[in-house]
């Protein structure tokens, strides 16, 4: 068992490494998003060149986050991948259906507030989280 255990421990360590890497890229993306969102008003007084640079940086870091997420998913085992896939399918479906319904309500002036993209992001995030928790409990 010794040789195989050493090899398998590498797999476990790799999974931890991928998770930490994804956490780092997600945090970096959030920070650059905050800078791009609030910087024009509170830091550089709407300088257009700096604003564009901040947005480009945010998108570049976002690309890194996507790659880190892909690497993380590829490193999971098949049951974990299935749980993630189910959660993402639920999140995408709910986001699409509820998001477009929400937009229609706004266009028809049935809701007083404007439909914000951030509401959709929150909905998809919570749905994804719910999906992961439900999947984890299902196969426990």
């Amino acid at each position, binding site marked *: *068992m010794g040789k*195989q*255990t050493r*090899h*398998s*421990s590498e*797999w*476990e360590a790799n999974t931890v490494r991928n998770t930490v890497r994804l956490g780092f890229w997600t945090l970096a993306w959030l920070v650059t998003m905050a800078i791009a969102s609030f910087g024009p008003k509170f830091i550089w007084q709407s300088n257009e060149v700096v604003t564009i640079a901040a947005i480009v940086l945010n998108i570049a870091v976002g690309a890194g986050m996507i790659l880190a997420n892909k690497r993380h998913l590829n490193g999971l*085992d*098949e*049951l*974990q991948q*299935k749980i993630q896939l189910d959660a993402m399918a639920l999140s995408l479906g709910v986001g699409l259906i509820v998001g477009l319904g929400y937009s229609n309500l706004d266009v028809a002036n049935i809701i007083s507030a404007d439909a914000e993209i951030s509401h959709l992001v929150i909905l998809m995030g919570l749905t994804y989280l719910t999906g992961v928790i439900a999947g*984890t409990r*299902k*196969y*426990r």
Partner: protein
Amino acid sequence: MNNRLKVLRAERDWTQAQLATELDVSRQTINAIEKGKFDPSLPLAFRAARLFGLSIEDIFQDQ
């Protein structure tokens, strides 16, 4: 799909965590397979068969 994973593991006095480590999967996956909640892929079934020195049919049976 039925399987003898739990019996084979018990015969060797391995924990789910040890078997999971041997098969490069999480302990949750071993638990789900043993309880019949999740069917493994063919590559994972082959790895299990190789580990126990058995054929796939000796471990996994169609219901």
